[in-house]
């Protein structure tokens, strides 16, 4: 809500500058997020009067004007506006003037004719296009003849541009300041004043309004209050300048006196009004009812709307003439010929108005107010105010009485509270007198009953209904800055992470220490990406109404997001990237489940080099085994019981079928690792990329390995190397298993130290060399014992795997 300081000053004595007022209001009640000075940056713009006018000899649209500007000699100004005419009082930017956008006006020649300055449109002196009256939209502004405007003086006071305007950014609960009177109450309470308002006094005809017109409300829930007044003999014309100024300074375009009056009352009381042309109505009756599904309505903005039974309409005998609380209809709008006006002041159901405005995308000033609530106590007064203004500004005759279709109970709210309650909630020690004084400043009345304050809250503060609301009023007027700063005093509590939270954090820390940067990607993604890189079957979860196709489905894997990140980096020449993410995937084993199961995952993706080229080392591209090593160490760091194995898999279609494995903990799959499928990688414009993902919830559920110190053995260990020739399809795991089973209890370690294919090795064979370590922790192992076991190993390799010992 834009608050004109001049308008506000009519209701409240303002002891401080607008800036000070804005600061004070911001910390006391309503945030003032902007202070507007309409004439800021403009200068040397005065009222001029066009004395004579002649056509420019070398132009078909320019006129040469002699313009009086309060000096002895008139100024010659060339003007191209179509509406320029002799006798007009106009806006003149003199040579040296600054107009909108800091544009400077200079003496110049226009097609050979001297021009000293410029005749201006409202837009050219900073008016927003939307508020310029239609008749001046495409030309210069012309002051009304019936106003007292002195030639040569600055135009700013005449156009309301000497005002200062504060933008009140009211929170939804404080819609009471969406009218000048509500804002005046707010500002007055801040300065410990009472605002002074005049009550409208409507001179009425003897003829009764309800003898000419009736109304009916089908359901009082739709319109708890519905009132009309009839004004006859109106003369529709432009409003006086003071009224137009109030409107345009508030962002509303002046139209004609009747419409302007309804808008003025809307701004003043926060009460939206509507005016119908009585003769166009046809019927002598207005009815408030639900719209019918499919009913159409042509609104004032020329658009046609198809209504539903959730919309409220006001109808004459035949059709909707207004979409209640939102916008009036085309068919009964006020025009120059209107003679009799039906004014409407009502309260419409806020939820329905909000939904209607939303459904039809009609965010009007009226709807904005009905949505948040209005002061039901002034619906009647606002109607009188409008009628009185129509009488004075349009020479109308106001028929006697308001025609009432429905009316609301106008009982104020009573809230009981104790001083103890207030101080207990605030941590203060404010005295009873001070608290009562605060309530009285706000215009609330207080009765003291024993230790209870009975506070009567006027209807204009419909946001207040419970003690907590009163506490808020007390603290904001008392001053948040006066509150002490303390910490809760209570029984000690222990803070910390849960075991689960610590587990998730440990995995992240470990991967960082291995050189992976932490990424955060989006949980909502495309259908394809959501279900890529999955091991288990799951139904997808989709948001009902996505913003874009890119963020529509909840992810079932973290790898897709990391690959997007990698691709983003690679496209920007960042070719060596290692990222990980710890986050959730959203698994639904049955499509009927209400909510998906959220599973904590840890995933990584690397592309580029593990070793960069330096002055002393050669570059080396990442391969499967680099990442596998990371994963092995990571899993090892979790310290869980169970045997880890890597099972070659072709089940994940986005992975290279010959370079991917399921990670098994005993018989349970806890994740996967693999090279991204070259075709898939190419789609993402990624070079060789290795990825992995671990299911942390599954790993967390495993039993911890006990952590009991084992002293380092004092007895020496003995190593034996064995090199074997085996068919290429024999896996390391098979060899490892065979060795372990045959080597006896003293085997402590197996290390693969060489793989060789080529000269000396038959085709389809490979040479593998292992180093076996034996140790007896109780005594020194003898060569004889080791040899015995080692022989068994060699035999087993020959017999079980058909290996040839080299």
């Amino acid at each position, binding site marked *: 809500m834009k608050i004109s300081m001049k308008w506000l000053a009519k209701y409240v004595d303002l002891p401080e500058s607008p800036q000070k007022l804005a600061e004070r209001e911001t910390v006391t009640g309503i945030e003032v997020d902007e202070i507007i000075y309409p004439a800021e940056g403009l200068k040397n713009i005065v009222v001029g009067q066009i004395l004579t006018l002649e056509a420019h000899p070398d132009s078909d649209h320019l006129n040469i004007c002699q313009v009086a500007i309060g000096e002895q000699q008139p100024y010659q100004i060339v003007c191209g506006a179509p509406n320029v005419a002799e006798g007009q009082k106009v806006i003149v930017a003199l040579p040296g003037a600054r107009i909108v956008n800091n544009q400077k006006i200079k003496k110049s020649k226009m097609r050979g004719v001297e021009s000293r300055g410029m005749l201006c449109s409202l837009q050219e002196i900073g008016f927003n296009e939307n508020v310029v009256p239609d008749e001046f939209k495409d030309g210069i502004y012309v002051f009304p003849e019936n106003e007292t405007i002195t030639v040569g003086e600055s135009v700013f006071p005449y156009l309301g541009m000497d005002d200062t305007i504060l933008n009140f950014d009211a929170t939804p609960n404080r819609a009471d300041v969406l009218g000048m009177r509500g804002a005046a109450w707010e500002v007055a309470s801040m300065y410990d004043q009472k605002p002074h308002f005049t009550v409208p006094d409507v001179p009425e005809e003897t003829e009764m309004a309800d003898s000419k017109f009736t109304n009916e409300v089908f359901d009082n829930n739709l319109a708890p209050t519905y009132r009309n007044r009839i004004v006859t003999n109106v003369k529709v014309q432009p409003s006086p300048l003071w009224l137009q100024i109030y409107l345009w300074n508030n962002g509303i375009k002046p139209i004609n006196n009747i419409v302007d009056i309804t808008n003025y009352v809307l701004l003043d009381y926060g009460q939206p009004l509507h005016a119908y042309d009585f003769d166009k109505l046809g019927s002598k009756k207005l009815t408030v009812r639900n719209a019918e599904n499919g009913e159409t309505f042509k609104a004032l903005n020329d658009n046609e709307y198809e209504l539903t039974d959730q919309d409220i309409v006001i109808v004459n005998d035949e059709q909707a003439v207004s979409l209640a609380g939102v916008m009036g209809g085309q068919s009964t709008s006020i025009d120059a010929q209107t003679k009799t006006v039906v004014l409407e002041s009502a309260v419409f159901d806020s939820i329905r108005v909000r939904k209607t405005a939303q459904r039809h995308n009609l965010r009007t000033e009226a709807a904005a107010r009905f949505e948040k609530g209005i002061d039901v106590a002034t619906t009647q007064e606002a109607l009188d105010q409008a009628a009185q203004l129509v009488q004075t500004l349009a020479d109308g005759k106001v028929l006697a009485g308001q025609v009432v279709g429905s009316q609301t109970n106008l009982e104020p709210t009573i809230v009981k509270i104790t001083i103890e309650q207030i101080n207990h909630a605030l*941590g203060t020690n404010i005295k009873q007198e001070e608290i009562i004084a605060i309530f009285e400043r706000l215009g609330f009345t207080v009765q003291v009953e024993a230790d209870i304050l009975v506070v009567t809250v006027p209807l204009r503060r419909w946001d207040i209904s419970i003690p907590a609301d009163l506490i808020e009023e007390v603290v904001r007027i008392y001053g948040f800055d006066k509150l*002490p700063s*303390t910490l*809760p005093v209570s029984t000690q509590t222990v803070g910390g992470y849960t075991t689960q939270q610590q587990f998730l954090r440990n995995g992240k820390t470990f991967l960082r220490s291995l050189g992976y940067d932490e990424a955060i990607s989006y949980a909502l993604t495309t259908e394809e990406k959501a279900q890529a890189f999955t091991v288990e079957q799951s139904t997808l979860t989709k948001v009902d109404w996505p913003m874009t196709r890119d963020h529509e489905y909840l992810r079932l894997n973290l790898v897709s997001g990391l690959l997007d990140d990698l691709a983003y980096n690679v496209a920007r020449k960042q070719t060596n990237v290692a990222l990980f993410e710890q986050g*959730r995937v959203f698994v639904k084993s049955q499509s009927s489940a209400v909510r998906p199961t959220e599973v904590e995952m840890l995933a990584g993706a690397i592309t580029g080099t593990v070793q960069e080229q330096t002055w002393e080392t050669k570059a080396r591209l990442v391969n499967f085994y680099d990442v596998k090593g990371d994963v092995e160490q990571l899993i090892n760091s979790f310290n869980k019981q169970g045997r880890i194995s890597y099972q070659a898999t072709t089940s994940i279609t986005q992975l290279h079928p010959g370079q991917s494995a399921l990670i098994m903990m005993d018989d349970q799959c806890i994740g996967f690792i693999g090279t991204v499928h070259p075709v898939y990688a190419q789609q993402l414009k990624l070079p060789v990329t290795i990825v992995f993902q671990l299911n942390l919830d599954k790993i967390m559920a495993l039993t911890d390995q006990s952590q009991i110190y084992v002293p380092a053995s004092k007895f020496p260990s003995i190593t034996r190397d064995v090199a074997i020739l085996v068919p290429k399809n024999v896996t390391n795991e098979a060899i490892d298993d065979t060795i372990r089973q045959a080597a006896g209890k003293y085997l402590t370690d197996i290390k693969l130290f060489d793989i060789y294919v080529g000269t000396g090795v038959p085709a389809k064979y490979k040479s593998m060399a292992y180093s076996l370590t034996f140790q007896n922790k109780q005594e020194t192992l003898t060569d004889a014992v080791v040899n015995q076991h080692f022989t068994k190993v060699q035999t087993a390799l020959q017999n079980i795997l058909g290996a040839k010992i080299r």
Partner: protein
Amino acid sequence: MELKDLLKDLHEKGLQQISAVDQINKLNEIRVQLLGKKGPLTQALRGMKDLKPDERPEIGALANVIRDDLQNKLDQAKQHLEQEAIQLQLQKEKIDVTLPGNKRKVGTKHVINQVMDDIESLFIGLGYQVVAGPEVEEDHYNFEMMNLPKDHPARDMQDTFYITKETLMRTHTSPVQARTMEQHDFSKGPLKMISPGRVYRRDTDDATHSHQFNQIEGLVVDEHITMADLKGTLELLAQHVFGSDREIRLRPSYFPFTEPSVEVDVSCFNCNGQGCSVCKKTGWIEVLGAGLVHPNVLENAGIDSKIYGGFAFGVGPDRFAMLKYGINDIRDFYLNDVRFLEQFKGE
């Protein structure tokens, strides 16, 4: 030659040999040569038996002196040569210490998690539990429990990613508070918790909006919790994150789940309150929303609002990080450009 002269001559020559040596291995040869069993000195001493008994002590003493002296000179020469050798070696091994080191890469924590962890550590120190909850929530917990009934204007369909009529992507981490309040046994002490996590709004991504972002909400419920406690707590938070000399300012605001509600500003760390572009010339920067827990929220969770009260606050780590590091596009957090990620060295 007399034995005595022979010894002196041996001594003389031995000293010459020693001083002429320039290699350690040669020195050893000389040692053997001079003092070894087959060396001239030993040989000479063997000739002692031919001397008269009264001459023997004198010659014996002289021989010992000569041997000791040669021994000493040999040791000195050895030491000297060793020194020289080491010096030489050190000289040869000199490197250019200005050549770049071989770096092992260490990953960085995402800047948002740096900010979140920093805030979490403060509240853990103050005795708060850290509680997580589902990101796909029930309407009931996300809205209704938080005093946002079905037709409340603040829960416009348009701002929320609904999945079904009753499930949605949580729009804040308040539902975690609702769930925790419902479970909490107040006979075991007050409830002090923070709930960090990812939240979602139906927004078009631009420089200041992201459909996914993060939140840390805090909640304390006990019998004697005051607005002053909230102010003190938020002061600590602001100073912890933005610097120990920061001040805070509370302004009235509105949230459906708190009453009174406040918006909290921190004095501008860029201009120290003088007014600059960061604080839009006001000297203050809006950083979070807070308030005393609305009695309806307590009652909805089965807590007697006549006995218990509390405060709650909500922090946006994305916004905190943007302010703290001068990041002006929220989308940067989710692009994971390594040139962005690796700038933030904190823990």
